[in-house]
């Protein structure tokens, strides 16, 4: 069945009234789940599986998938309004999103997040419809060497995310790598840096670190600056609560960037939405004409990561549906749901279960449309949260942080860690150490080390394996170029100075 007839068949399934209803329910639930920190789409999907057992497989997967990609729409809400990432893939959105909110452009930020999510989400589905099998083959060709090179390239972005001091950015990155090593080593079962605490055997939870270093530290900084008496500006009038034409124009490349980066990284089973959002953010900053403005509240700093984490869902469904390989917790559960319904994701799925496959794909077009219709009108409503007096908003931030962490981890030990990371984040701000490289190092550290050791195990210790394989060689070369570029800039300025002094 070729693409067009498949899609036609799929739309005939997805447009049935009951499936439209399930799609809407899934998208709605997903949005709510994405907004609440601590509750993730994986958990929600798992809890709803028993209810869907009696349903038609197409209807069931339409609803569950709606939760999955719907959550990516909601995740930006608390990131922008409260600086608390609703999902781990929404952390990069906090960086510029919250700053936009502080400048009074919260509505614009939320609107741009929704629009970017829609564009990139639709791109992801289009790519899924058209290119699923060849893209799947590409995903399989990626081995640990390529993953390692990709992680190094991601880390090279630290050069761009460090703000004033590259030295401090690199140090923050190294601390992030250290934090990532805390836990049990996969290859040797060696417990590393756990300080005798059995709760740390599983490693640090990303939400704990991110919320501590971002949200808690930010609140402390505001208190220190005496801002507790100021009210955050909330513009009046519906037009001011949505992005203006200028902001949308600034995001043109970001929409494209987020879509492509998100989809490609979504397809790779070893990458993830969090990595995709950081890479997309870094790329956007790299090609920007005003990179120094990133971090102060630029709309493209919201559009790029938000787009990336949505396009990632389309990408992640490629290996799931065409190969039966899940990419993360949510896709793993959808896999077990599909198996429970008797649909078998794998090489034969498109031929054997075209109704489910194409019905799902078609429903994602519809779902993305539903989500933008659902989310955009809610933007002015959510922006009103910032009207709350600061003496209510800050306790809310503390409360949401605590409840989110407790809901995600289930113990009070992690709340203690949250407070420690809050203090760390505050101290870092005082000492002008940038927080983003720390988080980047933390996110990439494990994957990078594993990829490195896997590669060396597979090549029996031969380090040339990284340059013998073309893809990894290219990515490593790019990383080196990025890392050297500030030095080249400095050399250039010194050369120009020498010329003008002598001339």
């Amino acid at each position, binding site marked *: 069945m070729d693409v067009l007839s498949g899609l036609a068949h799929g739309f005939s399934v997805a447009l049935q009234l009951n499936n439209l209803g399930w799609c809407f329910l899934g998208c709605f639930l997903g949005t709510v789940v994405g907004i609440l920190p601590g509750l993730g789409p994986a*958990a929600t999907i*798992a809890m709803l599986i028993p209810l869907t057992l009696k349903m038609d497989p197409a209807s069931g997967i339409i609803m569950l998938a709606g939760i999955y990609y719907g959550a990516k729409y909601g995740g930006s809400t608390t990131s922008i309004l409260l600086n608390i990432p609703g999902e781990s893939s929404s952390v990069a959105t906090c960086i510029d999103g919250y700053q936009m909110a502080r400048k009074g452009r919260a509505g614009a930020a939320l609107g741009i997040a929704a629009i970017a999510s829609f564009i990139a989400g639709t791109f992801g589905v289009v790519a899924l419809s058209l290119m699923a099998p060849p893209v799947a083959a590409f995903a399989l060709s990626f081995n640990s060497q390529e993953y390692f090179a990709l992680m190094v390239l991601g880390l090279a972005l630290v050069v761009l995310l460090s703000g004033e001091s590259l030295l401090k950015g690199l140090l923050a990155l190294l601390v992030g790598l250290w934090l990532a090593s805390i*836990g049990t080593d996969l290859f040797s079962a060696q417990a590393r840096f756990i300080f005798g605490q059995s709760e740390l*055997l599983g490693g640090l939870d990303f939400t704990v670190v991110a919320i501590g270093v971002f949200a808690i530290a930010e609140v402390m900084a505001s208190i220190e600056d005496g801002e507790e008496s100021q009210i955050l500006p909330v513009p009046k009038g519906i037009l001011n609560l949505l992005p203006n034409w200028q902001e949308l124009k600034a995001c043109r490349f970001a929409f494209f960037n987020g879509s492509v980066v998100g989809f490609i990284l979504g397809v790779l089973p070893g990458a993830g939405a969090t990595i995709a959002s950081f890479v997309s953010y870094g790329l956007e900053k790299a090609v920007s004409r005003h990179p120094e403005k990133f971090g102060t509240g630029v709309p493209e700093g919201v559009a790029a990561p938000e787009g990336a984490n949505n396009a990632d869902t389309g990408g992640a469904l490629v290996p799931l549906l065409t190969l039966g390989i899940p990419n993360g917790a949510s896709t793993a559960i959808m896999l077990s749901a599909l198996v429970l319904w008797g649909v078998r994701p794998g090489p034969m799925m498109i031929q054997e279960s075209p109704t489910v496959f194409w019905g799902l794909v078609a429903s994602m077009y519809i779902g993305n449309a539903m989500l933008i219709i659902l989310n955009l009108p809610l933007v002015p409503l959510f922006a009103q949260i910032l009207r709350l007096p600061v003496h209510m908003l800050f306790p809310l931030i503390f409360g949401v942080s605590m409840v989110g962490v407790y809901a995600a981890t289930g113990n009070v030990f992690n709340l203690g860690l949250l407070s420690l990371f809050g203090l760390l984040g505050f101290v870092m701000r005082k000492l002008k150490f940038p927080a983003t490289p720390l988080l980047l190092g933390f996110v990439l550290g494990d994957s990078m080390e594993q990829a490195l050791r896997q590669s060396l*195990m597979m090549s029996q210790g031969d380090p040339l394996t990284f340059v013998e394989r073309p893809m990894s060689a290219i990515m490593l070369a790019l990383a080196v170029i990025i890392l050297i570029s500030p030095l080249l800039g400095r050399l250039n300025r010194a050369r120009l100075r020498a010329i003008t002094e002598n001339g």
Partner: protein
Amino acid sequence: MSKRTLLAAMFAAIGAFAATTAQAEFKPSGPIDFVVHGGPGSGNDVTARTLATIIEAEKLAPVRVQVVNKPGGGSTSAANYIYSKKGDNQVIGLYTNIWLTDPLVQEAATHRLVTDMTPIARLTMEPALIVVRADSPIKSMQDFIKMAKEKPGQMKESGGSITSRENVVRQIIQKATGAHWAFISFPSGGRRLAALLGGHVDMMILEPSEASEQVRGGKLRIIASVSEKRLPGFGDVPTLKDSGLPGDDVVQARGVVGTPGMSADAVAYYTDLLRRTTQTKEWKKYLDENSFGGDFLGPKETKEFLTTYEGKIRNTLKEAGLKVVR
């Protein structure tokens, strides 16, 4: 009333009271907490929820069974939690192999399943399949062993952590045959399978439910099964024993454990509840779909089984060169 009559009456009353309490059966006084060591949506979480759903649907218990997630540190958070609920009759946990292996190799995982908790039942023994790519020249385990001996250390297997079942099987076979091949750990099942399908590793050991679709699609070939008998639906796949190799008893065991100091009545109650659950149609369907096997074992047999199994794993890991601390 004379003093003697009074005493007699007292003794009679005490006797009657003691008799009734001895006959009193345990009844759960509220929702039962079913502790799982994974987050919502993980494999164990789904198993626990399946059990809970069956119990509710068939009305096998007068109260709800609610799944409590205690992820972190493999099994450690869940094990610590169960230990902390000493004597609580309302808390049970779902154990798998790592509840046995974690305390063996981790200093910080202080609570052993067999000694610090109350084993209640063993529910499933889960087999595994040894697979290679369909276009590989390897047609049987003997082929694989031969190639591994010709190129020591160059053949590659993808799997989970070094204490996982796949590696234990590998260690046992390596010891028996003298062959040696590399074990490459990947944290996620998706990556392991992708590594095999992409041609980056030569072989992997995985669960029947993960493998069946790939086999049907013509991408993978099964060369042996890690199970005591040939698996239904895979009748022409030899077991390890058929191939002349040890290791077919390294199964993934899953079962239920109670808190330390749980009362004997409560243990009997849960044993009976679980036995009845495993006799339902839905449970049998669940077993079939996943190719799970294993007879239901009660508390005493489960404890014996786990003790022996723990000892076997301990020896294998020690011989593999891992530091065993308990």
